[in-house]
């Protein structure tokens, strides 16, 4: 009896030790910038991930956008901060130079598999044959149209413009002015500070027969007659045809949202806000084509693993990264954040592809271009100023385009030197 008792005690102890070893949890950190819907989506994903992986705890930190890069840069070299981090696709080169990312482990992230499953724009995340980051979601552009205003203007509310020429005709009909010519309702919301500069850069320039940059991304290629035609066509909307006005109702989104603009170009992340707007009867369609050419602009945020994650943490980090890029995670992201799934198979599911609102964005992704920005803020401003010089200062289009091209080339040269 005595021996039996001791045996039991010994067995119990062994079990207890084994139990604690098994329950040894690995804690990893995930960082992104503060944006309510993104934070909620990741919180939900962490909850699901932890339920599936009892040995791993994920700590979620979100940092205001303005401090995001600074904090990461300070934390990682000090061995602190995130194990898995979110970054804008255009920042990859900077992050690699600063050694803030490690290549993704090939066991879980096979290059061939990534290229087979994700939209082709993900290739920008591959450096020297290895992937450093993968996206959960991507963004593209669509044309929003206000059905109520269409009906009021005598247009068929079920038929949005299919081409740039149709767009201009309809925008004219949708425009209302008072006797003195003051704009009361815009045919089209114009806002270079929002998505219009992407539309101009990656869509209009290509549709007019040009291309914005050389294929290797190192030189500006839009200072050509095609580029001039694109900038002229866009500026004419405000100056010649007067179907819109920059700053009308403070900004393009407000103009469209308050039912004072018939058409607008924007991203899927706007859907949630517009759906919440009572009295706004709108729909979404693919960007208009021109002379049979279609194009779109795509951008995305990606997730990568930092050098801080080693050993068990690296394995846990890879598992978590894999988890937040699964089809299920992408569906949740679409629903909560309004950004499109980065995996073709998910995006092209019938329920999503033919979705009355997301569908247009998904179809646009198939032929979208992701600009290789070296400094998105500065490059956006160059485009805004290029149009402003034409609209406000009546500078001839070729001159203004030449100036923008020269300044942008300087930025590219500084980056690639």
């Amino acid at each position, binding site marked *: 009896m005595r021996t039996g008792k001791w045996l039991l005690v010994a067995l119990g102890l062994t079990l207890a030790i084994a139990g604690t070893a098994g329950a040894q949890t690995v804690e990893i950190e995930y960082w992104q910038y503060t944006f309510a819907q993104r934070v909620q989506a990741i919180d939900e994903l962490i909850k699901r991930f932890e339920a599936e992986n009892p040995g791993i705890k994920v700590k979620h930190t979100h940092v205001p956008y*303005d401090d995001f*890069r*600074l904090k*990461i*840069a300070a934390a990682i070299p000090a061995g602190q901060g995130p194990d898995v981090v979110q970054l804008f696709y255009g920042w990859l080169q*900077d*992050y690699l*130079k*600063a050694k*803030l990312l490690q290549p993704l482990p090939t066991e879980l992230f096979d290059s061939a598999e990534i290229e087979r499953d994700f939209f082709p724009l993900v290739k920008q995340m591959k450096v020297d044959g290895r992937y450093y980051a993968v996206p959960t979601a991507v963004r593209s552009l669509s044309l929003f149209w206000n059905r109520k205003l269409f009906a009021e203007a005598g247009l068929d509310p079920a038929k949005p413009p299919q081409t740039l020429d149709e767009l201009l005709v309809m925008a004219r009909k949708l425009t209302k002015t*008072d006797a*003195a010519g*003051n*704009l*009361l309702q815009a045919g089209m919301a114009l806002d270079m*500070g929002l998505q219009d500069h992407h539309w101009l850069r990656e869509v209009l320039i290509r549709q007019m027969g040009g291309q914005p940059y050389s294929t290797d991304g190192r030189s500006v290629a839009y200072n050509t007659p095609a580029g001039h035609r694109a900038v002229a066509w866009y500026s004419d909307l405000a100056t010649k045809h007067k179907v819109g*006005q*920059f*700053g*009308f*109702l*403070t*900004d393009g989104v407000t103009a469209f949202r308050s039912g*004072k603009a018939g058409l607008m170009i924007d991203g899927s992340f706007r859907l949630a806000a517009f759906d919440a707007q009572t009295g706004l009867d709108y729909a979404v369609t693919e960007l208009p084509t021109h002379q049979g050419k279609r194009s779109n602009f795509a951008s995305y945020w990606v997730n990568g693993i930092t050098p801080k994650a080693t050993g068990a943490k690296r394995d846990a980090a890879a598992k978590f990264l894999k988890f937040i890029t699964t089809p299920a995670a992408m569906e949740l992201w679409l629903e909560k954040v309004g950004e499109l799934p980065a995996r073709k198979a998910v995006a092209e599911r019938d329920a999503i592809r033919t979705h009355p609102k997301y569908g247009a964005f998904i179809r646009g992704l198939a032929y979208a271009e992701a600009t290789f920005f070296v*400094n998105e*803020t*500065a490059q956006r*401003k160059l485009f*805004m*100023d290029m149009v*402003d*010089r034409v609209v*406000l*200062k009546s500078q001839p289009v070729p001159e203004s385009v030449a100036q923008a091209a020269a300044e942008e080339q300087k930025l590219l040269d500084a980056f690639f030197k």
Partner: protein
Amino acid sequence: MGGPARPGPGRPLRLPMLDRLSLRTRRTLSAWAFLALPVAFYVAIRFYPTADALLTSLTDWNIVGPRRFVGLDNYRRLATDPTFWKVMGNTFQYLIVGVTVSLTLSFLVAYHLDRVRFGHALLRALYFVPHLTTAVAMAWVWRWLYQPVPIGVFNGLLVWAGLPQQPFLRSTEQALYAVLAPAIWAGLGFQVVIFLAGLKAIPQEYYEAAAIDGAGNWRALVHVTLPLLRPTVVFLVVVSSIAFLRIFDYVYSMTNGQGGPLDSTKPLVLKIYETAFGHFQMGYATAQTVVLFVILLAISLLQLRLLRSA
């Protein structure tokens, strides 16, 4: 009883070590003891970052990478950067127009308010209210006021009067003044209150003496009020100069953070912010802050001299 150093109730704690020091030394020591905390605080959060900024301005740093020493490259780049000169021009336009207009207006208000007895406190409070309002909220309200019809109040009035609409914030000529207006308006209350205090501090006897000598309102103003208000004016000029040199929130809120159109409203501080947190060029941004620091320092030193000679 125990030793003499034992603290009893109501007796201060005494350290024998301190007893050996002279009274003077002890006083100095206790002064430093009280000063230690603020000194440490200032060194850690003011002087050290300032010194670090001077060093950073000599480097090329994108926040995420290592700092690379580049000597005076950032300052050379500043000298040849057309936007920098444009922005300096704007900043001084904010400064000169802002200080002149706001001080003239606030003096006029204070001068007349000083003579009003009925409703004096209420009026003073009303002038002060904008000063208490959040700059961003106010900037947005003004932004709407400037909108074209159908929502803009100013343009609505113009159209109603049969005049053409004005572009205000969408014009490279008008935008800077359109942004400056709410900034002046918001600072007015503070300046009025300071002027009122200055006016109250002038002894009534001087006015009586001036009246006996036959001076009218105008001569009393020119020969009594204005000279005696000099310290107040110098103070307000310096304080509002610094405020206008650092103008940021109005511009940021009223131009979507762009300082546009075509940089026509962009002040130096906005360019610094944009260089640092839009372009992630910390070295270049810091070089600009050093320039701003030098300007602010020069103004403060000038103030000291003016006050001393006053």
